[in-house]
């Protein structure tokens, strides 16, 4: 059995929305191993987004445990979670979430900035990743000057810059046309092939076929957790 990167044990997440008490995760157990490519599916309100936020250390469980790379992060402070986000996690968003006033290289460097990595080293790392993403002619462009596919490549480069143990993608192709989306998915396949552990939220069954594991959420519970034979490479 290989090493677990993500381990949720009876994970519960409740929050108060106005007068309403909402339970977004009702005792979820989930294990994702190193090098695995998992897809989370489910209708909106099923708890999948909450789960992704918890996995990304942006949100804290109200019950149960979350072990990230074997370390229990449930009880960590806000600052400690921030440090984990900058050093161990990579985020890819549907709407790219680049910082508009920064150019391509500066956007890629942001996580290193908060880690306190010296500028020259950060710049080398950012240039290397930008080239790998095919952005060498765009290094000093601002996000507004790039196409959607290019922006998402910048975001992927940024998510890789700290060499994360877990990459989290929230519908990364949701804002892209199918051709560009396919390119991005191929890029993610490539990263998976290199051994990255990836968790992606999607609505698209087609995309789900590329992953090894498909986790389906309904009403805050996991209703299916299947290994996907077809997509396993």
């Amino acid at each position, binding site marked *: 059995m290989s090493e677990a990167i993500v381990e949720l044990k009876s994970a519960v997440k409740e929050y108060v929305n106005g007068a309403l008490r909402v339970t977004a995760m009702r005792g979820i157990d989930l294990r994702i191993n190193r090098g695995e490519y998992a897809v989370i599916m489910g209708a909106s309100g099923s708890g999948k987004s909450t789960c992704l936020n918890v996995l990304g250390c942006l949100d804290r469980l109200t019950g149960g445990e979350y072990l990230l790379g074997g370390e229990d992060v449930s009880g960590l402070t806000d600052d400690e979670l921030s440090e984990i986000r*900058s050093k161990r996690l990579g985020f890819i968003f549907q709407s790219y979430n680049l910082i508009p006033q920064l150019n391509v290289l500066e956007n890629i460097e942001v996580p290193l900035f908060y880690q306190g990595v010296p500028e020259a080293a950060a710049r080398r790392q950012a240039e290397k990743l930008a080239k790998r993403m095919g952005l060498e002619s765009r290094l000093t462009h601002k996000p507004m000057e790039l196409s959607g596919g290019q922006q998402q490549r910048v975001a992927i480069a940024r998510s890789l810059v700290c060499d994360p143990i877990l990459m989290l993608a929230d519908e990364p192709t949701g804002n892209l046309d199918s051709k560009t989306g396919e390119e991005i998915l191929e890029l993610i396949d490539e990263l998976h092939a290199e051994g990255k552990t990836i968790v992606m939220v999607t609505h698209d069954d087609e995309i789900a076929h590329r992953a090894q594991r498909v986790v389906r959420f309904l009403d805050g519970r996991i209703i299916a957790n299947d290994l996907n034979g077809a997509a396993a490479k």
Partner: protein
Amino acid sequence: MSSMRPERMVRLAVKNLGQYKLRAGLTMLGIIFGVCSVVAMLSVGEGANQEIQEKIQQMGSRNILIKSVKVPNEESSQSGRRITIATYGLTYDDASDLSRFVPHLEASIPIKRLRYDVQFKARRLQTDVVATIPAFIRVQNYRMVRGRFLTAADEEFGAPVCVIGTRLARMLFAGYDPLGRTMTIAGDAYTVVGIVGDIAQSELSAQSELWLEGENQSVYVPLTTYMQKRGDLFAQMSEGGSTFEKIELYELILSINKQENVVRAVDAVRRVLKRNHAKEDYSIVVPLELIRQARETRRLFNIVLGSIAAISLIVGGIGIMNIMLATVSERTREIGIRRALGARRIDIVLQFLMETLILSISGGVIGLVFGAVIPLVITAVTSVKTVLTFPAFAVAFSVSVAVSVVFGIYPARRAALMDPIEALRHE
């Protein structure tokens, strides 16, 4: 604390502010006006203060001035009679009593001050003639510009010599060197032996010259000489007849040995004069009291100026807070992104505080420059005296930066306390 190096934070802040150049400029304008008005007001205030101090210092802080005052006389102008003699004011007896009874007295300077026609060649004008003793110059802060003042020998022999003020020298002797020349005072010939100026005038202060215009226009003669020629009676011809005034001493300056003894000496002066005079035909001026009053006035002045300055700085601070709140809410998404990518709360606080700090420091510096220029313009245009002092700069600058930081903390905290998930969803 933050893991980021300060210089990187500064660059980031400058880059962020660069997005909103117009907005940053307008925000800075608030600080610029605030700092500028504080510096300008303080310098005007300091100028006014120095001017008052100078004037009072000229009168001498250890001196007590006693002047004869004409009181409305019940003395009947009996119908038909056309000659009246008014007798009032300080007497020689007063002078000797005061010398005897006032403690800590260093010098007592008797003065007769009358207006006469003075003439040099064809030029004639009316001015104050001050008949006094040589010690006069010691108790007044006057300064010889050329020649000498009256001497003990002049006094003893009743020499027909005079010393003239700088302004009179210019007016009466234009084109001639006054020293050694003879001028007439009420028809009597006097030889000019010196030109006297006041201290402020030597410092080229135009305002003080105005204040002491009379003094600079006066002519000083030995009291003994004057007495021999004119006596105590002063005649004034007018249409209805003649008025004679008999005044022994027009003024008396008492110089006290130490400033702290002045108050006690003043009490003695009041006692003596009250005993000698039935009517209060004299007035006592104590420059030291004027100094105290001036200080009190200055304190009030400073409070008023300070309040106005504080208000303008607070308005500037509110401007900063306003803009930073707008900026924070516009950049909610950026904050969410940064938090997701590993920024701690303190990193976000420092990022926005740094932006505030850069706005206020650059606004402050520009404000100081304008604040230094405006008083010069005021002085040039209105001839109001202004004085730039280092504390004014330091206070204006540091208070503006402090106010900005205080007003910047709230928006920065608000940014840092945002829920990153909410912030990321923000459109």
